[in-house]
């Protein structure tokens, strides 16, 4: 077992995520979507420059009920229903942010952000640089990322691989309600643009989140959290697949007595590569679990950085568990196999240990 002093910067949090999430429930379980709403509402009460814009965020109360009730509290000038014009309203946010406002833009799905690619990849991350430091672009873009459940090829994008290639943005990807709230509040306060990747499949997950009266819950960027502790292998993941890793870790523990570290990166940019290396000092084995495609993925980046920085720590070549390198299928049976599921993770961990 690694000693916790190796990982002092990555304290364990009392997470829980419903029945399928080991870690224990706290006294105030709320849904992932409620955690997001609390984060936005608390920040909007604090700072009148913040507004929320997106499709169906106001009168419909959010396509996924994330913004439920916010129109009533903040009114239609701050909770703004946009027509289906991602490129238009993403670009509007760029201009508004340059002028001095703090927009939160909800993409119903990050899949739809691709029609706004010019704004979010060409303008948002580059404005500060190409203006020689005169104008930043403090917008939070948030929405559902990854396979939502039989949505087919065009609606199931995991954009983290594609977007993390671009310098100039921060990318946060929570795996549970606690981080969802804490990371989103941090994102909204950040002076730089943040892409905030949620998952439709997690919005109903419940976990303890401290009450607002207990103080601002701000989860810092660039600090991974150790979610399960073991010495056999390091599992690195982010977003929804962290939960697949925890399922795999439980299986490995119960069925084979194998204990693994599960590191939840929480942000992809910045990436807490130091936490991974600290864990590898004990485990010497690495499996990176990532819901985007394998080629040039975040998992590939993690493996590359580990090889560059800590090659000597490794007793087995690092392995990646990604979604399969095919368009996301519709069929339940095919989609389930496509994702980086528990079975794939268990097999990868066993492989690093030399099991056949």
């Amino acid at each position, binding site marked *: 077992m690694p000693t916790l002093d190796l990982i002092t910067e990555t304290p364990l949090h009392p997470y829980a995520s419903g029945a399928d999430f080991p870690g224990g429930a706290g006294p105030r379980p709320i849904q992932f979507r409620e955690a997001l709403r609390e984060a936005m509402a608390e920040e909007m009460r604090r700072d*009148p*420059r913040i*507004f929320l814009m997106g499709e169906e965020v106001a009168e419909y109360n959010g396509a996924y009920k994330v913004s439920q009730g916010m129109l009533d509290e903040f009114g239609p*000038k*701050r909770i703004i229903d*946009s*027509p289906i*014009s991602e*490129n*238009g*309203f*993403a*670009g*509007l*946010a*760029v*201009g*508004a*942010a*340059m*002028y*001095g*406002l703090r927009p939160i833009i909800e993409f119903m799905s990050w899949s739809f952000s691709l029609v706004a690619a*010019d*704004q979010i990849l*060409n*303008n948002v991350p580059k*404005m*500060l*640089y*190409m*203006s*020689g*430091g*005169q*104008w*930043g672009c*403090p917008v939070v873009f948030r929405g559902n990322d990854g396979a939502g459940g039989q949505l087919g090829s065009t609606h199931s994008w995991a954009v983290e691989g594609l977007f993390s290639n671009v*310098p*100039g943005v*921060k990318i946060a990807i929570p795996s549970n309600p606690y981080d969802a709230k804490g990371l989103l509040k941090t994102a909204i306060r*950040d*002076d*730089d643009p943040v892409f905030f990747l949620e998952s439709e499949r997690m919005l109903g997950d419940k976990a303890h989140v401290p009450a607002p009266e207990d103080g601002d819950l701000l989860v810092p*960027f*660039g600090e991974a959290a150790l979610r399960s502790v073991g010495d056999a292998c390091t599992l690195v993941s982010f977003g929804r697949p962290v939960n697949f890793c925890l399922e795999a870790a439980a299986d490995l523990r119960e069925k084979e007595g194998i204990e693994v570290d599960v590191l939840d990166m929480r942000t992809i*940019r*910045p*990436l*807490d*590569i*130091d936490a991974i290396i600290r864990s590898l000092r004990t485990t010497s084995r690495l499996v990176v679990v990532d819901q985007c495609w394998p080629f040039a993925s975040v998992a590939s*980046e993690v493996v590359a950085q580990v090889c*560059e*920085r800590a090659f000597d720590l490794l007793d087995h070549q690092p392995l990646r568990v990604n979604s399969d390198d095919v368009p996301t299928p519709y069929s339940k049976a095919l989609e389930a196999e496509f994702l980086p599921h528990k079975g794939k993770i268990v097999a990868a961990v066993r492989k690093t240990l030399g099991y056949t």
Partner: protein
Amino acid sequence: MTAVTTAPRSIPRRPSAALPDEALLRMLRDMQLIREFENRTMQAYQQAKIGGFCHVYTGQEALVVGTFASVNHDDPIVTAYRDHGHALARGMSPRACMAEMFGRATGCAKGKGGSMHMFDKPNHLYGGHGIVGAQTALGAGLAFAVKYELEVLGRDLASGGNPKKRVALCYLGDGALNQGCLHEAMNLAGLWSLPVIFIVENNLYSMGTSIHRGTTSADDLTKKAAAYEIDGFSFDGMDILSLYDNFKPVADACRDDQKPAFVDIRTYRYKGHSMSDPQKYRTREEVEEYESKRDSIAMLAAHLMRDRACLSEDAWRAMQDELAEIVRDAVKFADESPWPDPKAELYSDVMVSPHPRMSPSGEYVEGACNPILEGQPGGGER
């Protein structure tokens, strides 16, 4: 929608008649500065002092100077990549503008932007933008923010005082008429009555494609505005006084009523689309027609000499000489300015608040390292 060259409301005849001589002389001076500056820009480009894509403003000077004269200095503006004229007319020093194109540390964006990306915060210029039409959504966003200041914040973001009624000017070329972004931006502006004026710098060609080959309703672009319930106008942009007379009431109405407008301004670029354009798509005679008979600078100078009698031949020549000297100085300044230091500048301005691991002063920069800068901020193996 309103027909060609019709002013939107009842106004005194010829607002330009009320302008003092000094204001008109200032217009002439600003236009001539741009003309002279662009002459030197082309020269420097041919000498390979300026790199990349470079689009000069020659011929279109009246458009930017006349529209700027119709609004306040703190009204936000955003434009496309043919942006040197906007920068100079808004008050950027010719030195900073030229040095930016030379890629020097003294440029307006420290040499990180170049010809297509003139940004000037003190002068409320929210950039020249390189992707055709992309800036139109930013124009809507600036207008959204202006209106938000008034209606939600109730205070001026910059000063903290009472909010002012502002109007955003968003310039685009006629090529941008065919980009989806403009149509999304116009729909949002019309839907939410955002105080933005979409100004089409209609020089008749998007690169080498004449407007009739590129867009529908080329002879009456205001039809496009009508689709979004935005007031549309079409004005001549070569005669600066007529442009001012037509445009000023539009700008005032958009400010007062916090609403959008779409203005097609007919202009002409004397030079190629960029510095590498052989111009086979138009005749030499067409260019000469504009240069010899419709030149905005010559027209205004003649008006000031003949009608206003506030400018002598000698004074005009002296002004031209003075501006030529200012531009010569700008070229000299740019040429003698230091290059940006890669050790200090390559990794700066990526983030406002970089995480230590993303920071040039931090111990590790994300992604691959630069072995040339090893041991320096932002580079090298750790």
